[in-house]
């Protein structure tokens, strides 16, 4: 497992060797903050010193931005042929998958934490509940990991980054939509309620919601961690073919 460290370092610094990191970080902060100040966000109208409204856009924002980070993970290696180099170095598939995933996850965490100025803003405007702020950040980071696991898997399937992006987007959209009432009621019309409920349980949105209300439920944490574990396991299997 000691091989993860050099792989992580190369991948993480790789974002900053090209304009990717700077474009992404700026876009992430600008889009997320302007959404909450926009008429859709209603940040001021809510008259509430909390980040609930700011984070309510995250599941939607991640839908586009996480595939943008995840799409290059394996597709790029396949396209440039460096995958042959990587897999003839003394590293196992698992180490390679983990090293790359953790680097991308750390990068997303950095993006999420760069919104910390929003927390200072609400602290200036009122008295926020810091417990809720911390749990929301924790939830966002875990949710980003879940999205990223799915996108990393999709990226391993193709050497075309556009296909990788679209596959990631579709898979994440499916996992997000599962939780919405319109979707579940459609499912309930032809499936038993218990089955529809079970499927709805796989949604990012349902598991994220608790965190935004300051509740760190073990089930939600386990959901995101096991989603990451499962997708990364499949990732190794796909690369082993």
């Amino acid at each position, binding site marked *: 497992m000691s091989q993860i460290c050099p792989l992580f370092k*190369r991948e993480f610094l790789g974002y900053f060797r090209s304009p990717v990191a700077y474009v992404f970080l700026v876009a992430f902060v600008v889009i997320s903050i302007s959404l909450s100040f926009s008429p859709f966000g209603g940040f001021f109208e809510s008259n509430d010193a909390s980040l609930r409204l700011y984070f309510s856009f995250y599941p939607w924002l991640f839908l586009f931005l996480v595939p943008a980070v995840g799409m290059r993970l394996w597709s790029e290696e396949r396209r440039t042929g460096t995958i042959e180099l990587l897999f*003839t170095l003394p590293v196992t598939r698992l180490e390679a998958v983990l090293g790359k995933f953790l680097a991308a996850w750390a990068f997303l965490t950095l993006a999420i934490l760069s919104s910390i100025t929003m927390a200072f803003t609400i602290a200036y405007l009122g008295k926020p509940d810091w417990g809720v702020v911390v749990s929301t950040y924790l939830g966002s980071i875990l949710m980003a990991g879940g999205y990223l696991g799915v996108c990393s898997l999709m990226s391993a399937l193709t050497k075309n980054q556009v296909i990788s992006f679209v596959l990631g987007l579709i898979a994440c959209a499916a996992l997000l939509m599962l939780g919405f009432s319109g979707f579940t009621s459609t499912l309930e019309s032809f499936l038993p309620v218990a089955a529809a409920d079970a499927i709805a349980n796989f949604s990012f949105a349902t598991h994220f919601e608790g965190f935004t209300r300051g509740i760190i439920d073990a089930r939600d944490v386990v959901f995101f961690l096991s989603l990451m574990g499962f997708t990364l396991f499949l990732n190794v299997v796909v690369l082993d073919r």
Partner: protein
Amino acid sequence: MIEVKGLVKTYGTKRAVDGVTFNVRRGDILGFLGPNGAGKSTTMKVITGYLPPTAGSVTVNGIDVTQDPVATKRLIGYLPESAPAYGEMTVTEYLNFLADIRGYRTKEARQAQVERAIGLTHLEGVRRQTIETLSKGYRQRVGFAQALLHDPAVLVLDEPTDGLDPNQKHEVRLLIRQMAAEKAVILSTHILEEVDAICNRVIIISQGKIVSDETPEKMHARKSGARLDEIFRQLTLSDV
């Protein structure tokens, strides 16, 4: 050092490598010759552990490549065809990353290996340039530096002189010959003069099968006075 026994590799229904058996000892420079698509690269990819064999076995220094791939990969330096590299890194960053992966964990140890590889392949002038800005010849040399970095006991080079100008070709050949005494080297090529210049053994492979395995001198003796490419053509004609 390398023992290949009854190696078969199929892609779908196509047999790319069909029962190849040979071994390479320390001090050997084995030239792997054959028309395009004969199975040279595939054989090398199995030896280096990139592709699993369909049947047969490959051992490096007595270790089976499917049993303990990480151990055999440590022993091998591999230059893949067209020398892929992480283009956004500079030459020094790239080689430092590889030294790290190759187990040189202290900064001094890494630096020593990187300097040695840069010196051997004459990359001093471009060390701070990103790899994507380099010309083909330099990129090939970076690939070469990558393969030599950990002073491996086994070198597997897939068309090492491809894309180099005559002077660079000469230099690479010289380098391979200098190092060969304490290493086992396999190199693939379709440049026949190269075999004469550096190899002490030649395997000709055609349609996934070995059609000859001998020294270059013996090969010349097959048909006295004939040029190597005539003999090559005769042996691989069924492929055309």
